[in-house]
């Protein structure tokens, strides 16, 4: 209270005697410093986004780069009415995103609770657990393709020893989806874990003590005390994983090539294959625009939730 008042007083004094208030006082050199970087940012991101938007209204292909025609909403109309692959890709995206995010957050929470305990070697465990996060998607895809190989993969070997028959992990339509989720579980959980771990560590222990005194058991403490406190962080983790799952490309591209058939071709892969496989770039741009809208809607819903749970 008092400190605030003192600070305010100081500010007032400064304003009266008019000394420089940080860098901003020298307006023009400040602007000269800031504007180039903002300009670069705009040139690199805003301009291409507008071009993308424009291209989505044209029938640009690789052979008609310079003489593409403006065709209005045709691309969008075709996507929503005639394109059966689009609906399929949406369904695959939904499956993959729901599977990936739920599995990652669930196991991320469990592992975070585990790393939050006190035992010998826990520090080493926390660091080692981070390793998959640093491996590029394509490399982890290749490693897992080797592990999941039908005939000589080690996972099928282990399953056989347990009495199961060989599973065609990447060749079966249902199992391919499971495989993608499994590899995502391996590569994406550490991120969730580390975020949730910090949230857990920042929970004030007096809450826990109070709950123990009130006679709460472990589950009650977790669901009634800890979870409500760290809810904003959990939602943030969900949001980040959701965005990453929607726009995922490299892992699926190298793990299953979107196959078998179109079983794991989600929207992003589909847009890529249209834009740069069939070279119908206008149509691809329209698909990309739709993906961006989906992401914007999802993220704004989640952001809303986060800010609401922050104020609660």
């Amino acid at each position, binding site marked *: 209270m008092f400190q605030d008042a003192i600070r305010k007083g100081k500010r007032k004094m400064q304003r009266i005697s008019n000394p420089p208030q940080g860098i901003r006082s020298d307006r023009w050199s400040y602007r000269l410093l800031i504007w180039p970087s903002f300009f670069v940012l705009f040139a690199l991101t805003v301009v291409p986004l507008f071009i993308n938007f424009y291209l989505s209204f044209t029938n640009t292909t690789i052979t008609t780069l310079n003489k593409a025609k403006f065709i209005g909403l045709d691309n969008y109309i075709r996507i929503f009415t005639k394109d059966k692959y689009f609906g399929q890709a949406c369904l695959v995206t939904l499956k993959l995103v729901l599977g990936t995010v739920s599995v990652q957050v669930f196991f991320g929470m469990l592992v975070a609770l585990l790393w939050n305990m006190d035992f010998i070697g826990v520090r080493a465990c926390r660091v080692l657990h981070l390793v998959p996060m640093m491996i590029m998607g394509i490399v982890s895809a290749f490693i897992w393709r080797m592990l999941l190989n039908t005939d000589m993969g080690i996972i099928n070997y282990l399953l056989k020893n347990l009495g199961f028959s060989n599973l065609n992990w990447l060749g079966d339509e249902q199992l391919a989806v499971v495989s993608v989720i499994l590899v995502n579980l391996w590569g994406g959980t550490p991120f969730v874990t580390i975020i949730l771990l910090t949230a857990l560590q920042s929970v004030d222990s007096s809450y826990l003590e109070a709950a123990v005194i009130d006679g709460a058991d472990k589950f009650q403490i977790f669901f009634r005390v800890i979870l409500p406190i760290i809810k904003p962080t959990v939602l943030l983790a969900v949001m980040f994983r959701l965005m990453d799952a929607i726009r995922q490309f490299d892992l699926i591209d190298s793990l299953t090539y979107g196959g078998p058939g179109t079983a794991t071709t989600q929207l992003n892969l589909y847009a890529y294959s249209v834009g740069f496989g069939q070279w119908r770039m206008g149509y691809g741009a329209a698909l990309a*625009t739709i993906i961006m809208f989906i992401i914007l809607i999802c993220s704004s819903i989640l952001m809303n939730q986060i800010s609401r749970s922050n104020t609660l």
Partner: protein
Amino acid sequence: MVRHLFQKRVLGRVFIYLAAAVVILFTLFPIFYCISTATKTAVDAFSIPPKWLWIPTMDNFVNVYHTEGFMMSYLNSFVVAVMTTAFSLAFGIPCGYALARGKGRGTAAMGTYIMITRMLPAMGFAVPYYFIYKKVGLNDTYIGLVLIYLTTQLPFTAWLLNGFCRTVPTEIEEAAMIDGCTVFQTLIRVIVPVIKPGISTASVFAFMHSWNEYFYAKLISGRNTRPVSYAVHKFVNDVGTNWGLLCAASCMVAVPMIIFALISQKSLVRGLMAGAVKG
């Protein structure tokens, strides 16, 4: 009673260690398997039952080293990653600083915009960049790759450093200005040293992301600029994958990054926290 409690605790301990072992095994086994395949001979690699003891051989690594163009792509990746890091810092520091200090609607809008840019899919930039590059002739050039990498790295860096700049008290800047520093000097001599941890975090991320980037690399790079993230594909073909070579190449691509990340582990975690929690 006491004994009962003790027993329960021992059981709990055992369970905790068991769980930790399972998690670590699941985490590290694929990596171990990759390294082991890379150091095995072709016969040993897929023998059933798997060989847990083997005499390591470096043949695969030597072969990868002699594969035409692979070491070149190593260099390409390095050049592109360093350039991307440098540019994202050069423009990201002023951006982040302005976001932290600016007031009013413009800054708020800019902050939201940067937040949104961070979430956009690479596909949204792919078509227009390909289109522009085709016209300007920037396909298969270093600068072309760096520019398109900056679309993700620059907003990320600006946003990360924004968080760090917020923690710097304005009084320090005021003092510097009173002592006669120009705006530029204040930024270089006062702000930058204070947010050094943030800068190291940002550079770790920029370097790692550009090293691991695949989507744009596949699209924009050509024969002259293939980064390693795409060059690994060389060892996969329709006839039959040479797993030994592929694993050796994967190790050569991934292991430097793992070591780099483990060394800079602290700034990595700090960055993730700043990135996620301050959101």
